[in-house]
């Protein structure tokens, strides 16, 4: 995707921000950056950006088409769609950050344990990772939801549980590599502590691929959250979520088609933005990695 930079044979003015320079060189990554920043700004500044309260019910004005008062119209309970969408971004971001952070930490921990610990433990953990990857993700998610009941907390657990195997695998591979390498031996000779031997060389090498994985996972997480909320199994109403907005639009599709149009748009734009940005980052940091699957 950074074909413009490639073709000219030169990277743009690197100066103080080489990464930014590389990203801005490619038009698609530029647009992606705009979309992602837009998403983050909307999510963070939601209370100031939304014209109305997202949960204010006003049945008298239900199912109104877009107008000056309500730029995106109102839903079946008279709530302002624009406000709901703006707050929906907030929900999406919050859940994405929390679940990815938790998954990352679990993955880091288990990866290190698997790589550095006894063989039997490693074997067991690998079996766990493979099993989790063997399940169609939605099945696993639904099973957990049945057990724990639907809700925001469950959602976070589900996402973390389905995401951590890929991080754990990465960390494990890196740990295993470090485990047998020379500076480990050197560290041992210097009687350095186990923690020092493992962490210090490990972290810098892991940060790059890990960031790529994380950034590629964020759009997936947003989609999963939206999807489960769409099925009524994600965040509980009246918390606005892009998924539930879409569901409301779906049930009113004949009466108010604009709901579907506007409800789906932020989801599409956000995931497109993150995906292209991830591509750009990947091209910059490590062109060998592959892009993710569709959902």
């Amino acid at each position, binding site marked *: 995707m950074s074909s413009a930079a490639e073709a000219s044979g030169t990277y743009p003015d690197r100066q103080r921000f080489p990464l930014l320079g590389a990203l801005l060189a490619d038009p698609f990554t530029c647009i992606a950056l705009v979309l992602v920043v837009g998403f983050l700004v909307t999510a963070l500044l939601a209370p100031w950006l939304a014209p109305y309260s997202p949960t204010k019910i006003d049945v008298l004005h239900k199912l109104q088409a877009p107008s000056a008062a309500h730029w995106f119209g109102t839903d079946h309970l008279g709530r302002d769609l624009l406000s709901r969408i703006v707050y929906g971004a907030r929900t999406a971001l919050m859940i994405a950050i929390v679940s990815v952070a938790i998954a990352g930490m679990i993955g880091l921990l288990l990866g290190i344990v698997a790589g550095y610990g006894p063989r039997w433990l490693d074997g067991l953990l690998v079996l766990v990772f493979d*099993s989790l990857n*063997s*399940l*169609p993700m939605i099945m696993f998610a639904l099973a957990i939801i049945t057990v724990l009941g639907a809700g925001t907390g469950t959602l976070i657990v589900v996402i973390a549980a389905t995401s951590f195997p890929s991080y754990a695998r990465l960390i494990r591979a890196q740990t295993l590599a470090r485990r047998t390498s020379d500076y480990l031996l050197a560290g041992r000779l210097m009687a350095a502590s186990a923690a020092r031997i493992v962490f210090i060389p490990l972290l810098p090498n892991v940060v790059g691929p890990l960031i790529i994985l994380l950034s590629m996972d964020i759009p997936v997480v947003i989609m999963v959250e939206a999807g489960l909320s769409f099925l009524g199994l994600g965040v509980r109403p009246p918390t606005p979520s892009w998924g539930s907005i879409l569901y409301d639009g779906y049930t009113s599709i004949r009466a108010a088609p604009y709901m579907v149009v506007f409800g789906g748009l932020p989801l*599409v734009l956000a995931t*497109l933005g993150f995906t292209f940005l991830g*591509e750009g980052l990947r091209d910059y940091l490590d062109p060998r990695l592959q892009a*993710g699957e*569709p959902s």
Partner: protein
Amino acid sequence: MLAYTLKRIGLGLLILTFVMVAMYAAVFLVPGDPATVALGPRATPELKRMLTERMGLDQPVWWQIVEFFRNALTGNLGYDVWSNRPVSTLVMEALPNTLILGLTALAAALLIGVPLGCLSVVKRGTIADAVIGVLSVSVIAVPSFVVAIYSLLVFAVALRWLPAIGAGEAGDFASQARALILPAFAIAFGWIGYIARMVRASMMEVMGEPHIRTARSFGLPEWKIVSKYALRIAIIPTISLVAVGLGSILSSAVFVEAVFARPGIGKLITDAVNTRNYPVVMGTVLIMTAIYVSITIAADLLIAKLDPRGRDVFRG
């Protein structure tokens, strides 16, 4: 080949067993006992007792696990908490619909995606290649249920070309086929882009290899080089990823079935989740996992057959 096959199947069974144990153990994680949870606010002591007995929860834990395995191996996955119908029956009734949907989507994605990828390679460097490239990445990013809803809006509601709901009349092939178009397309949409991209990347790599030069030096036409000499090798990683992605297709099927109100595994399981019908959920998950593991094994074996180099040295 045989040793590898057995090894893969063995691994698959191991994974399946692990999943079964994990699923069953999860029941005991539920705060409060499962019967109360399943019944919700309607839990009278009597109903609770009846349900507990029916679910076998009054027996010791070890007995429950053994019973479960014993039953599972004979095909008995428990009973629907509400209707008392065997779970396996429910799943078998719903499965064909989902399989048809998934396979149709996969077939469509391959039939469109692979040629598109090849076209991209043959016309590499041109505008056509760039356009296909951008579109490929874009469509991957859009979730299938969003595609489903938008296509529903455009084709079913606005244009009224195709049915919005259901799977068509039983016995009427034409109406069933028509009802299949939008849902299958919704699932296939992202995959077309993904497959085209995979095929292109794979092909570009293969086309640079020396044996392609040999074929060219004998004057073989480009179409033959692409389709016979390059594609057979390039398709291998694509098959592998598609097999892995089958799980993803099944996930998409759940959502798409919800959007188009189609009967199938998706509807079965989401209803079960909403009513906390754990036996149905568990049974469905197990069967789907078994199917998924089998597909992965089949794909691995297919790859081993297509690429004779790998057979002896497969790391599994």
